[in-house]
């Protein structure tokens, strides 16, 4: 493999590239799902290929292929040059990649139990057991359970002398049930929305989530929601968000607007731009003084945890918001140079066939000081919402609207009646400035979002978000009439 990578890079040097890198990625994925007692998916997937990225005469070109033969490496490298030449027909500003990246080393995701060592029969038995528990609940229309395991081996080398090898392991899964009654359709998921949480970890996380042990509860909640009171409509109230919903709030309204490539307009054609423009850095009051947001690729279990990003920059931790003030971005080598900083390892490609672009890694809300019981007891009148059901935000990341699977009324410091179809809406900085309490690290969980979309052609990234429940004041709740 290294010989092929050296072959490509030597070719690029011979042809005068200013910079080049190559990634070889092999991905093995096992996924399975059970639907109403029947296995409706049991698949093993194996995929390998390489991608060459070249900067020549100030313009970028990228080409990739599944075929790892020397002849194909030569063809693809030549194609990347041809593409870079074409890019130069509409050139941009001079590219400054900042300091050279010369990382060397090997990284593997830490895990306790290799998920690929567990038999298919044992994995299916776990899902069937959870299915049987859900099946015992009257009133369900659909019950689903799923598991996914990924092993990705990635080699990276560049013309500056970097060479790294990484093996990333991910384990994910969950349950989702649908209840139908009259005009109502209700769903409940565990351990996270749409029936899936995912971590950089082994089989041990699946055991920790205890899908069979939570199956009956989840199923009963879905049925109960059919006849629950609707969430009050068009009120302004105190909102407490569960950690899993807050993780998505962080993803949409914090992670995306801090992607520096969006700020510089390079995602305008698809994902949009950002309201966090560069003159705001260091001064803009993004949230209340309790709000601290961090981007890191180091924390255990995070889907954004690795050894080096896809430019070979080492994993690290960067504050994005400190004591409420906006202080940092998610950056690549090129974008970081434009603001006088160095990359914080946020360039990621979804596979060998895609160019790396700025992506979230783990973007987390740091824990506060409150216990969950105290937070509820301290709230006179409000609504608690958890587990996302719908999400939408504008192209600059200001106006958002979220719906969750379940809500509970809070009255006089106690959780009360169940509420169906809860929704809330707001404007990002107004929302975060209304945060007046965050639960402590005992309630902090690293959640996984395995389906973040960005880029053209489209790329799906896996991102991590740590969050504990938190409280927000004067939030507009209930947009359904």
């Amino acid at each position, binding site marked *: 493999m290294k010989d092929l990578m050296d072959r490509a890079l030597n070719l690029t040097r011979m042809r005068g590239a200013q910079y080049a890198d190559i990634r070889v990625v092999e991905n093995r994925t096992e996924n399975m799902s059970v639907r109403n007692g029947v296995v409706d998916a049991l698949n*093993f997937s*194996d995929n390998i*290929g390489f991608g060459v990225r070249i900067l020549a005469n100030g313009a970028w070109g990228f080409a990739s292929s*599944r075929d790892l033969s020397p002849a194909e490496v030569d063809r693809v490298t030549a194609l990347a040059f041809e593409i870079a030449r074409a890019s130069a027909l509409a050139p941009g500003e001079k590219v400054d990649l900042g300091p050279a990246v010369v990382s060397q080393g090997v990284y593997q995701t830490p895990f306790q139990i290799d998920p690929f060592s567990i038999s298919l029969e044992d994995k299916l038995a776990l899902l069937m057991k959870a299915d049987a528990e859900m099946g015992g609940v009257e009133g369900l*229309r*659909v019950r689903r359970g799923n598991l996914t395991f990924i092993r990705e081996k990635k080699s990276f080398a560049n013309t500056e002398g970097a060479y790294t090898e990484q093996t990333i392991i991910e384990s994910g899964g969950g349950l989702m049930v649908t209840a*139908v009654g009259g005009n109502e359709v209700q769903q409940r998921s565990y351990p996270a929305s749409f029936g899936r949480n995912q971590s950089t970890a082994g089989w041990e996380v699946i055991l920790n989530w205890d899908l069979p042990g939570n199956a009956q509860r989840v199923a009963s909640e879905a049925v109960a929601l059919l006849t629950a009171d609707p969430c009050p409509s068009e009120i302004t109230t105190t909102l407490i968000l569960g950690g899993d919903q807050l993780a998505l709030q962080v993803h949409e309204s914090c992670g995306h607007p801090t992607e520096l490539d969006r700020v510089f307009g*390079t995602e305008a054609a698809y994902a949009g731009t950002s309201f966090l423009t560069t003159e705001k850095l260091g001064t803009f009051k993004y949230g209340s003084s309790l709000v601290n947001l961090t981007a890191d690729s180091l924390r255990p279990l995070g889907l954004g945890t690795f050894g080096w990003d896809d430019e070979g920059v080492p994993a690290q931790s960067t504050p994005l918001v400190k004591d409420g003030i906006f202080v940092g971005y998610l950056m690549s080598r090129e974008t970081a140079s434009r603001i006088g900083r160095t990359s914080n390892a946020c360039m990621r490609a979804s596979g060998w066939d895609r160019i790396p672009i700025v992506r979230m890694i783990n973007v987390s809300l740091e824990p506060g000081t409150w216990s969950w019981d105290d937070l509820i007891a301290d709230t006179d009148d409000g609504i608690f919402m958890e587990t996302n059901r719908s999400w939408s935000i504008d192209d600059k990341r200001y*106006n958002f609207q979220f719906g969750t699977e379940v809500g509970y009324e809070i009255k006089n410091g106690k959780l009360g009646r169940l509420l169906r179809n809860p929704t809330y809406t707001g404007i990002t900085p107004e929302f975060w400035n209304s945060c007046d309490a965050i639960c402590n690290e005992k309630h902090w969980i690293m959640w996984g979002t395995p389906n973040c979309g960005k880029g053209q052609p489209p790329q799906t990234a896996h991102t991590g978000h740590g969050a504990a429940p938190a409280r927000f004041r004067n939030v507009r709740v209930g947009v359904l009439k």
Partner: protein
Amino acid sequence: MLGQQESLKICKQILGRCGKDPAEVLIFSEDDALTRFANNTIHQNVAQTDIKIIIRYIIGKQIGTATTNRLDSSALDEVVGRARLNAQASPEDPLYPGLSGPAQYQEIPAFDDATASYSPQARALSVRGICNLSKSKDLNASGAFSTGYGEITIANTEGVNAYHTSTHADFQTVIMGEDSSGRAQRTAWRVQDIPVEELGKEAVHTAERGRNPHKIEAGEYTVVFDHYVTQDIISSLCFSGMGALSVLEGRSWMNDRIGQKIMSSQVSIWDDGLDPQGAPMPFDFEGVPKQKVDIVREGVVLGPVYDRYTGQKAGHASTGHALPPTARGFGPLATNLFMAPGTASLEEMIHSTQRGLYINRFWYTRVVHPRDCIITGMTRDGVFMIENGEITYPVKNLRFTQSYVQALADVEAVGRKTYLLASEFLSSVDCIPALKISRFNFTGSTV
């Protein structure tokens, strides 16, 4: 490109490794390129080539699948072995109807040599033209121009041998001013059918007209939608309930409404993979020939699309809408949607509006509640107030929360021209017109 002979040869080699067990092989090969631009420059320019082999292995009613992108002998041994293991480990699915049998497929033109060989330089020259136009107007162009080709081969132990090759091209651009933007897009299987310059001018015109937008109150408005909005409506209805699985599970907007008139009589929607005006595909991913399916006719809901599995459950023949076996859990999907054109031009729809909004596109739309397909999302890239039949001023982007089923019940006029567009997640390519709707609910606005 593998070619038909080579593809079917590989299928035979794989099926030969399955012994006496029933099995099915799908081979996808693709060769795609995309030139992306922003800030009036080309900033990302990419190409990829790949082959994907999916094997469905059957032992009685036990099913397992495996995929690979390797073609060497040991890789094919491994992938068949994995699929067999998966089948052996899987409990029986008593409702599995088995593999489909051989069929005759319609020959439909869908491949264009010029598109297949479209060069990086050709794409870049077109993009440069748009960037130069934008610069001349003091605007900022971004977008993507993609071309490519693909092959699909399906073979199984029951005698299915299906092969289809196609080309695709898509151009989309967002042109931005300080406080305005406009967008245009077109999809085709012949790159010559994409009027790049015209699309650039369309987006520039919207961006220029959109300068200094006003904030307006949320509320219900009469709306005139460009075809880009109509595509979102059709796509959302598709994902929320045009497939038989969602109907069988009771979570479709069609449930309890099949046979009823719930939309305007001006609304007719169908799926047709055989129409060369769309992105033609003669068979589905089980090798069943595609059929034209009327989903809504003159406002009356007729029913969903089926694959063999849901067809067996519902007592209905497959309509040729199966997805690959690795996506079986999604159920059948309509991927070539058409909406019937009407008689009005966009200008006529605007002139006939006393007070309302003209909207270019929707963004980030998601299901809030599936029963009536209640969707929330934002407007983007051009919203304009209409007063007394004229566009009077641009408007800041708005959030809506609205039942799309109700919206199509309130259709007052349908555009006479239709346009071909690939959907955001590339799951379908649809042919749709503009719409005028008497009331649409906006619940907020952006900063």
